[in-house]
């Protein structure tokens, strides 16, 4: 193991490490800790210049209730769910199929189609912006959640295909051969042999895509406007305008916006990290 395991080092170094660890973490998360404290402070603290001191009273409930009661925040959050969940389902479903096709079959052009997905997944969003916005308008999907979902599914299929194809390629091919010898139809091989083996990949991708889409800002701004269809990332700008310098409200709002992906990450941590690092380490 590198560096040397801490329990094999001197007592002094062990103690230093044990104290450095929490200190480093606090430094690292300081901006977030500050926001968390902001969000439970009463408005009066900011007026009196008590930014970084302890809250004079804990107004957790009051602040957070106000976010829900006096702003379109609940609407934005709901929109985010209605955009994110269908995208995850759509992109994962499509890429299970493309990944299966590219990972199991040998045919001419296989690798080029694969590279098309990979390359497309890395292009800057701006090269797609004008045509995609234009198309969304002409399909009557501008400023709708459906419009965003359609684009997200399509774009995420690139990354998801890269992921699924590599995963399927690493599966034992003998299982598929054995099924073929038995005369099992190809789509049944997909459904009954390959798909069950893909469960960990599906879980990993789902969490990852959930986070990506939840956090998307650019497309939300380009393809939607207003609380009817905007997700929380875009909504927070108008939330900002509404609450101006009410830092306790802004903080509470930001925390609410960040919570779902954070919760997702903590619940599915193993899958999340497996997803991010697949292919990075063999």
């Amino acid at each position, binding site marked *: *193991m*590198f*560096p*040397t*395991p*801490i*329990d094999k080092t001197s007592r002094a170094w062990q103690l230093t490490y044990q104290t450095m*660890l929490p200190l480093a973490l606090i430094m*690292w*998360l*300081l*901006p*977030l800790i*500050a*926001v968390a404290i902001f969000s439970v402070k009463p408005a009066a603290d900011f007026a009196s*210049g008590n930014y970084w001191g302890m809250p004079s009273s804990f107004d957790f409930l009051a602040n957070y209730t106000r976010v829900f009661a006096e702003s379109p925040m609940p609407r934005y959050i709901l929109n985010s769910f209605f955009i994110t969940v269908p995208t995850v389902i759509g992109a994962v479903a499509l890429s299970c*199929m*493309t990944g299966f*096709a590219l990972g199991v*079959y040998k*045919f001419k052009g*296989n*690798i080029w*189609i694969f590279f*098309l*997905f*990979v*390359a497309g997944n*890395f*292009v*800057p*969003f*701006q*090269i*797609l*912006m*004008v*045509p*995609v916005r234009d*198309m969304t308008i002409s399909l009557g999907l501008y400023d709708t959640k459906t419009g965003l979902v359609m684009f997200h599914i*399509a774009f995420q*299929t690139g990354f998801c295909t890269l992921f699924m194809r590599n995963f399927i390629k690493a599966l034992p091919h003998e299982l598929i051969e054995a099924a073929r010898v038995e005369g099992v139809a*190809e789509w049944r091989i997909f459904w009954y042999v390959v798909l069950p083996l893909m469960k960990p990949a599906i879980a990993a991708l789902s969490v990852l895509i959930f986070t990506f889409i*939840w*956090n998307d*800002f*650019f497309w939300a701004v380009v393809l939607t406007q207003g609380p009817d269809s905007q997700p929380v990332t875009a909504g*927070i*700008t108008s939330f*900002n305008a509404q609450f101006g310098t009410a830092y306790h409200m*802004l903080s509470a709002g930001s925390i609410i*916006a*960040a919570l779902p*992906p*954070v919760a997702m*990450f903590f619940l599915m*941590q193993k899958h999340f990290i497996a997803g991010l*690092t697949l292919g*990075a*380490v063999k």
Partner: protein
Amino acid sequence: MTDSALADVAALGPKKPWWRRNQQKVTPWLFLAPGILFFLVYVIVPIFQSFQISFLDWDGLGQKEFIGLGNYVELMDDEAFYTSLKNNIIWLTLYLLAVPAGLFIALFLNQTVTGIRLYKSLFFFPFVISQVVVGLVFSWFYDPTFGLMNEFIGLFGLGPIAVLGDERFVTYGIIAAGLWPQTAYCMILYLTGLNAVDPEQIEAARLDGAKGIKMLWYVVLPQLRPATFIAFVVTIIGALRSFDLISIMTQGGPWGSSRVLSFYMYEKSLSEYGFRMGYGAAIAVILFLIMMVFITIFLVKMYRDEKG
């Protein structure tokens, strides 16, 4: 049963039906069809359309006028374009600090003490939250009247500095905010990489007297090459894609000094500065071509790995 139907069945005879024979050839295409269709319509075709639009003078609604290289010629004389390009280069260079920083934190956390798993996931936190939130948090952090940074430099009798309001500092301030989540990302890549480092090689090197930096450089880093490669790829792409933080923290200001190509393009096409779709598309094409250099390098490496 009629005669002709019987004849049909007889004709099939010992030969398997068409579907049975061609199943393995047709199936992959059936499975690919929906994915490819979606991807073509929303990703591949728009790339070519953007190239086309970059030759037009078009406000997005009215008449399209073909002006050839007009937009590109105009770009050559556009000071804001050069500012954006310069900032893109600064982003690209400084953003790469996330790679060694990520490695450093990964090495720091690569221990087996109690609670280390929780530490690792808390260190990863910044990557999970939206850049919109990161941008908001950092703009408060930099705020000249109450920001934590100014409280801190105030201790040394400095400041206050309005990081985001000062042309000299603004881009660096935003990059620092971007480095925060990006370092977390690189850290996770390296932590996973360190898990896969061969302990026997480490032991052997230890017996040979290697330790510290030498051990890291000659024994550990070579084994971390896949992780390093991915860290570089995602960081470079991330640097060139940077948009959210700039849009949230400064809107490209002050006086356009924190613009990058991705933001300038958006501004030209979809903001109060006008709806110049053609001009915006031309900027996007330039950004795309820059990005293509890196994408190609990545694909070539992937191709070699596939063959090898």
